[in-house]
């Protein structure tokens, strides 16, 4: 029996495809964001409010992933920006090859900002690089404040945590400060913003963050750390 060292990442194939995408995004000046959360945390609602706030001339596009149905694409297409649905037919996450296929026929040079709405799942999307510039995790106040501790991977890899549905705080036993502290236990540098897509509280702060981040990188993003 001989033991030989074996090198490389287990997800080598995906990482290679993701690296190609990242290079392509860079070449065309596309800022790509990977939105990840549990099902029902408000990813689509966030995108609705975001697209609704943009001028028609804004060069933004959306890829939205689900296991089945094109319901989300239909919801998001109403705002007049390019939207494509990716149905994974059972797969619990998007991978880089799905993104590449979904982008076929789109002129990347005409897109500045690309939102990728991942399949609702806090675990599996964590492992798959999509060539994005940053991952953003959403946590709604109707979930538990211990989520960052239970699913550390995604909170560790996300630049920003959006605490959503804050209009419901009076009605749910969710301690938002504990949720933030838990996220920082896992990832001390994570940035945090609170918002409600119903009342639009905090929405401007989110819009400013994404603009600044897309334009000038992380350092240009407004300080959100409380």
């Amino acid at each position, binding site marked *: 029996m001989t033991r*030989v060292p*074996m090198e*490389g990442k*287990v997800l*080598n194939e995906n990482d290679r495809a993701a690296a190609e995408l990242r290079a392509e995004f860079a070449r065309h000046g596309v800022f790509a964001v990977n939105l990840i959360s549990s099902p029902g945390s408000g990813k689509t609602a966030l995108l609705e409010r975001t697209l609704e706030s943009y001028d028609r001339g804004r060069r933004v596009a959306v890829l939205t992933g689900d296991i089945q149905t094109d319901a989300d694409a239909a919801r998001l297409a109403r705002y007049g920006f390019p939207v494509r649905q990716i149905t994974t037919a059972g797969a619990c996450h998007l991978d880089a090859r799905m993104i590449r296929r979904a982008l076929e026929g789109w002129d990347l040079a005409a897109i500045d900002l690309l939102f990728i709405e991942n399949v609702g799942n806090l675990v599996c999307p964590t*492992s*798959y690089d999509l060539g994005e510039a940053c991952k953003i995790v959403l946590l709604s106040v109707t979930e538990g404040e211990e989520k960052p501790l239970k699913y*550390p991977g995604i909170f560790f890899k996300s630049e920003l945590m959006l605490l959503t549905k804050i209009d419901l705080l009076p009605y749910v036993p969710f301690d938002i400060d504990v949720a933030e502290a838990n996220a920082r236990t896992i990832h001390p540098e994570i940035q945090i913003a609170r918002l409600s897509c119903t009342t639009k509280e905090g929405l401007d702060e989110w819009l400013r963050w994404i603009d600044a981040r897309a334009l000038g990188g992380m350092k240009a993003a407004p300080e959100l750390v409380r």
Partner: protein
Amino acid sequence: MHEVGIANGILDAVRKETEARKPARAVKVGVRIGEMAGIDPQSLAFSFEVLVKGSDLEPLDLAIEPGVLDELEFAYLELEVP
């Protein structure tokens, strides 16, 4: 759930690696998985077992070692040389 895909990726890599080392055959593959990798080791071990069964690589063992943070990398391959 995505552990099946990960297990498949491991098998593909083992296949490629042993192809280059014929006639040796792989008996065990070691991977390092960090706590932040978003991989459940038990689920991966189970998926791996199911996929190996009846495949050209049977019998093949998987050894999972703790890795650093979000590490998800190969560590070693054990070969049997006839």
